[in-house]
């Protein structure tokens, strides 16, 4: 390119440039500490507006009071002092989003933190946005396959649903979410994993696992680790959902995992107390319900006229000693469309995933379940419900009738069948075949401790020799398919 061309291009670019005097409203820092700043001036400051502190540090105005403005600072604030000037930006907090975010690890402000360079080709999106209205939505009618047999059969999740994963620490909550992400390969789904207040090492391990399984090809990770400021932890889920909305607006289906909202509530409590907002129950501020409801309401299934995309949310809540009646768990339970309750007793008994089927529910997912699964799962749910009832009773009874014994045996075998190792999600066809086998009594002659072994062999038999049948099962269910599956199971049993 010649010098003349360069000069010509510069001239063209600068043709619109006009020297102007820029006016900007400013305030003065009167108090700073614990990530919070209080400023005087800034009379026209708007709620959630970005403020610029010296050194380019950004803050968000959260408290607009009569004479002062309270803001949280998003970064290192040691250089800020009393009397410093703060500028209004006139902009509400937004983050850069785009297709390039997929496969990357970003912070709550959209900056890449994975050392793979800046994320290019992005557009800015508001972090806080009103959830889509009633007229733009449609009922949940398409399933999200988690690949976990107990969930897909008994607590099905649909695209656009909010299904809470709740349980004590170390009961496998994250494992369920990660397995679900891994299972979305080839399912036309973008995934976003939001890590809130987790150890950096845990996030690194999760990202490594997602990379190893090829899930990072369709997944973005938003992280605000335990070492991040509480303001970043507070913003991370909103940043995640802003990215999810970008894909939903393009008509795509998105799965978003918030891991976890208990830590998110704690970060918000910290900010609120520092801003001197009045504390309520468990010292949480009065708007802690709205904190989560406005986040989870942004998950929805859009109708065709509005692009047809969806956001499925899997929020995670950590309970203390199984207490689901604490403040934050009850709030989130009431917001979501069902919950998967993980029980530590089951976990230590070796029943993994440790899903307490009795306390778990999916309020809308049933209508999204595949036909074949719906057909076979009904019997499974009933058998498990009867087993739970009889199990407690059988501990005190010494002499049981034949029918009760039969039901207990079946329950034990199904419990074994539903055990599933981590990072090994199953396709729907295999899940249906396993449940159908249990329904027609294929497990009756097998010792309980041998069920796992049988299961593994049956899975490899089905996947290696009956691929077309499994595909047919995934597509639908009729007498012909049922007959074919029955023959395959009976032939396998004879062997």
């Amino acid at each position: 390119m010649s010098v003349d061309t360069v000069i010509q291009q510069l001239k063209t670019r600068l043709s619109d440039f006009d020297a102007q005097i820029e006016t900007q409203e400013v305030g003065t820092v009167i108090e700073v500490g614990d990530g919070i700043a209080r400023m005087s001036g800034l009379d026209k400051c708007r709620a959630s507006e970005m403020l610029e502190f010296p050194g380019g540090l950004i803050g968000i105005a959260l408290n607009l009071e009569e004479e002062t403005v309270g803001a949280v600072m998003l970064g290192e604030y040691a250089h800020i002092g009393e009397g410093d000037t703060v500028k209004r930006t006139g902009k509400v907090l937004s983050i850069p989003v785009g297709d390039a975010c997929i496969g990357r690890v970003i912070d709550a402000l959209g900056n890449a933190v994975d050392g793979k360079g800046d994320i290019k080709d992005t557009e800015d999106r508001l972090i806080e946005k009103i959830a889509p209205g009633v007229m733009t939505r449609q009922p949940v009618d398409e399933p999200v396959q988690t690949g976990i047999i107990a969930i897909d059969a008994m607590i099905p999740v649909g695209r656009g649903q909010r299904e809470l994963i709740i349980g004590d620490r170390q009961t496998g909550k994250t494992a369920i979410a990660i397995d679900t992400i891994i299972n979305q390969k080839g399912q036309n789904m973008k995934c976003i994993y939001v890590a809130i207040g987790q150890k950096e090492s845990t996030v690194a391990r999760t990202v490594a696992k997602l990379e190893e399984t090829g899930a990072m090809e369709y997944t973005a990770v938003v992280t605000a680790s335990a070492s991040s400021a509480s303001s970043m932890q507070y913003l991370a889920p909103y940043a995640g959902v802003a990215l999810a909305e970008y894909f939903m607006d393009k008509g795509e289906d998105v799965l978003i995992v918030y891991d976890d909202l208990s830590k998110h509530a704690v970060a918000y409590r910290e900010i609120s107390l520092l801003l001197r907002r009045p504390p309520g129950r468990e010292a949480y501020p009065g708007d802690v319900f709205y904190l989560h409801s406005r986040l989870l309401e942004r998950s929805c299934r859009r109708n065709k006229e509005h692009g047809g995309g969806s956001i499925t949310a899997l929020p995670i809540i950590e309970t203390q000693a199984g207490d689901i009646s604490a403040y934050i768990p009850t709030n989130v339970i009431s917001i979501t469309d069902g919950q998967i309750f993980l029980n530590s007793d089951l976990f230590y008994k070796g029943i993994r995933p440790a899903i307490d089927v009795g306390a778990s529910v999916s309020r809308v997912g049933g209508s999204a379940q595949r036909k074949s699964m719906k057909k076979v799962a009904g019997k499974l749910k009933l058998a498990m419900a009867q087993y739970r009832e009889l199990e407690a009773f059988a501990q005190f009874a010494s002499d049981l009738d034949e029918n009760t014994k039969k039901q207990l045996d079946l329950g034990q075998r199904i419990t074994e069948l539903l055990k599933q190792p981590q990072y090994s999600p199953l396709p729907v066809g295999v899940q249906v075949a396993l449940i159908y086998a249990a329904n027609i009594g294929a497990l009756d002659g097998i010792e309980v401790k041998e069920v796992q072994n049988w299961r593994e062999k049956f899975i490899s038999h089905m996947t290696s020799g009956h691929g077309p049948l499994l595909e047919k099962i995934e597509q639908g269910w009729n007498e012909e398919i049922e007959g074919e599956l029955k023959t395959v199971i009976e032939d396998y049993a004879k062997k």
Partner: protein
Amino acid sequence: MPVSSVQMARVLHDSLNDESNKNEVVRLFLEFCEEKKLTHLLPNIVKHLEKINAKKIADNTIRVYVARNQDKDVVDMIVDFVSKKSDAPISVHKDEKIIGGFVALYRNTVYDGSVTKQLSRAKEILSV
């Protein structure tokens, strides 16, 4: 309810806005202090009053930052641009970082006509 010297200073400062009866306000204020046995607060009240006054003056001062010494006419033009009808005090400061032009600060508003600002705007246009 205990009364703080800051509150007392604020009340006195607001009451002194009316030029016509300043002496009367001060007399009544002193009487009130004696009656309520608050005279021990007077030294602190005076201190806060000075602070409030200094802040008010600072808030009302037009601060002009220029890169090099300017003629009075130039400064007057800047002040005229910032506030046409104001008789606010003016303070002129030298700041070489702005390269040229001026930056003025008056009542929580910054008027930035500096060369640094224009260069950063040009940079933004060229880097798009």
